[in-house]
């Protein structure tokens, strides 16, 4: 049995309402028909492969305006049922039981809004869910081109910047990093391999100061690359130049070991990302020691 789902007709008015060529009060029915030659002919764009049929008609509406009416119909066959004679007869049976008082609006029988497919089984390891990016809340946030808000203190994404972190007290003072970056790295490795029975120094126990080392890594994300440095620029120079923008956790200047001369670039790690951003904005193109500095975000190094 074929079921046709009609789409509502859409009417578009071609002429603006105020230019009445024909005054309807002076028209009778016959006059209206005589003017049909003014109308373009009716067009039927027959059902295409999706079953969509368009009928375009032109009429005069009540105000005498030419109106184009487009009716789009999609005929969808739900099922091809070849009914036997008795089945056809059964179709006209009266309703009984609880179905007697069925209101027209009762939603007992509905067509599913979702298209359900016979899903072929997938190889283990590949999931259908991987393609559904929209389900991931992070993806929807980043979609508009907005920057992903990462708080370095609590590690929560998409909620607040580090300076606005409700858990600010977890942050460790930045000066400690400049003194012992290598020391903390080696001790972290050692803590990972040691068993629970051996002594674990307080700085390396779970929780608490553990955030210190994590913070250090997050600082690397706020790394600023400075290029076109003069030959004798060293770390203290960069520190002095950049500390006006905010606390700096680390500075580094690449130096050629053989000649002792600066290779012309270095890195500055800010504690706060906004400080880094301001530094970039202010110092990029700044004249320093007769050279124009280039200051930008450093690309993350692959560890």
């Amino acid at each position, binding site marked *: 049995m074929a079921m046709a789902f009609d789409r509502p007709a859409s009417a578009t008015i071609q002429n603006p309402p105020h230019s009445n060529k024909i005054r309807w009060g002076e028209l009778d029915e016959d006059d209206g028909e005589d003017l049909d030659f003014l109308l373009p002919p009716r067009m039927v764009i027959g059902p295409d492969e999706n079953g969509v049929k368009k009928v375009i008609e032109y009429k005069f509406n009540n105000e005498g305006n030419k109106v184009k009416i487009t009716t789009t119909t999609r005929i969808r066959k739900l099922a091809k*049922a070849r*009914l036997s004679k008795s089945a056809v007869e059964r179709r006209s*049976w009266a*309703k009984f039981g609880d179905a*007697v008082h069925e209101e027209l609006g009762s939603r007992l029988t509905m067509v*599913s809004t979702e298209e359900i497919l*016979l899903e072929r*089984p997938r190889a283990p390891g590949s999931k259908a869910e991987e393609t559904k990016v929209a389900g991931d809340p992070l993806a929807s946030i980043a979609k508009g081109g907005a920057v992903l808000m990462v708080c370095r203190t609590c590690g929560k994404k998409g909620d607040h910047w580090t300076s606005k972190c409700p858990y600010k007290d977890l942050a460790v003072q930045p000066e400690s990093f400049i003194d012992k970056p290598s020391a903390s790295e080696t001790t972290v490795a050692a803590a990972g391999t040691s068993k629970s029975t051996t002594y674990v120094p307080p700085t390396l126990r779970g929780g608490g100061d553990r955030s210190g080392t994590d913070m250090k890594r997050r600082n690397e994300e706020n790394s600023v690359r400075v290029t076109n440095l003069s030959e004798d620029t060293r770390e203290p120079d960069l520190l002095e130049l950049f500390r006006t923008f905010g606390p700096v956790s680390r500075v580094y200047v690449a130096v050629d070991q053989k000649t002792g001369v600066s290779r012309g670039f270095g890195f500055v790690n800010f504690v706060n990302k906004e400080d880094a951003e301001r530094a970039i904005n202010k110092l990029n193109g700044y004249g320093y020691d007769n050279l124009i500095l280039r200051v930008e975000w450093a690309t993350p190094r692959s560890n």
Partner: protein
Amino acid sequence: MRPILMKGHERPLTFLKYNREGDLLFSCAKDHTPTVWFADNGERLGTYRGHNGAVWCCDVSRDSTRLITGSADQTAKLWNVQTGTQLYTFNFGSPTRSVDFSIGDKLAVITTDPFMELTSAIHVKRIARDPSDQTGESVLTIKGPQGRINRAIWGPLNRTIISAGEDAVTRVWDTETGKLINESDKESGHQKTVTSLAKSADWSHFLTGSLDKSAKLWDTRTLTLVKTYVTERPVNAVAMSPLLDHVVIGGGQEASHVTTTDRRAGKFEAKFFHKILQEEIGGVKGHFGPINALAFNPDGRSFSSGGEDGYVRLHHFDPDYFNIKMGSLWKHIILELHEAID
């Protein structure tokens, strides 16, 4: 495909049955009221009011005039399909679980549950052409299986009755004598309760589904195990396509597949298997609860599933369902040919 959702039942579905011509679908549920729907668009035609307990099973006569239902209220009732009036009530001493009309609709087999001192039993009743001549006397009563008999159907030419139930054994009984002719093998057969039974269109083989998470295909004459289909879920319902070599298995909770981020309708699916290759073809999701009933339209072009969620979902297959290619089919046929020749 766009399934048609029919929410006529307030409680979980227990059974679904199409009439012979495939234009009517009968649904039974725990809400005491079997319902009949038009099988093409899911429009409700009527309900059969009268039972006082969950309705477990139903069957419709070949001419679609008589409906028989079995209910937990210890009765089986005969109804006029068209008007919904009750024609006769068979009374029993315990809840009735399964009903089936014989070929020719002159007899019906009704099973009753074990209850108090009564053991489970299979009753054969004569069905009179004229409802006023109907009596409740039994032609045959078979006792023997331990535990509940979940399903009993007529075998080919009404010569045998096939039953299966809680003791996991599938049995074949002789209709003339009431004696046990054949029994399924205990090792290769099901290990847990058999919940459902479905026969092929030509009666040459039938399918059983069990809580041991598998469905098995048996030869009707010899009761040899032919195929086994393994799923991850206890099986509540099975159905066989009359058109293609597909079997459908519906069941309960999937232990491993619990994801909370699925936006889709419902996660319980009816699994399609290739009957001969025993390979999974795919699944049709949608139910919000375990699937308790499955039925194929006799023309093989649509099927319906009934769930614990009270919904009946009627699916008309897309054209590409009929073109499903199983890659290993040819290899399998060639291998079987070689075995036959050697």
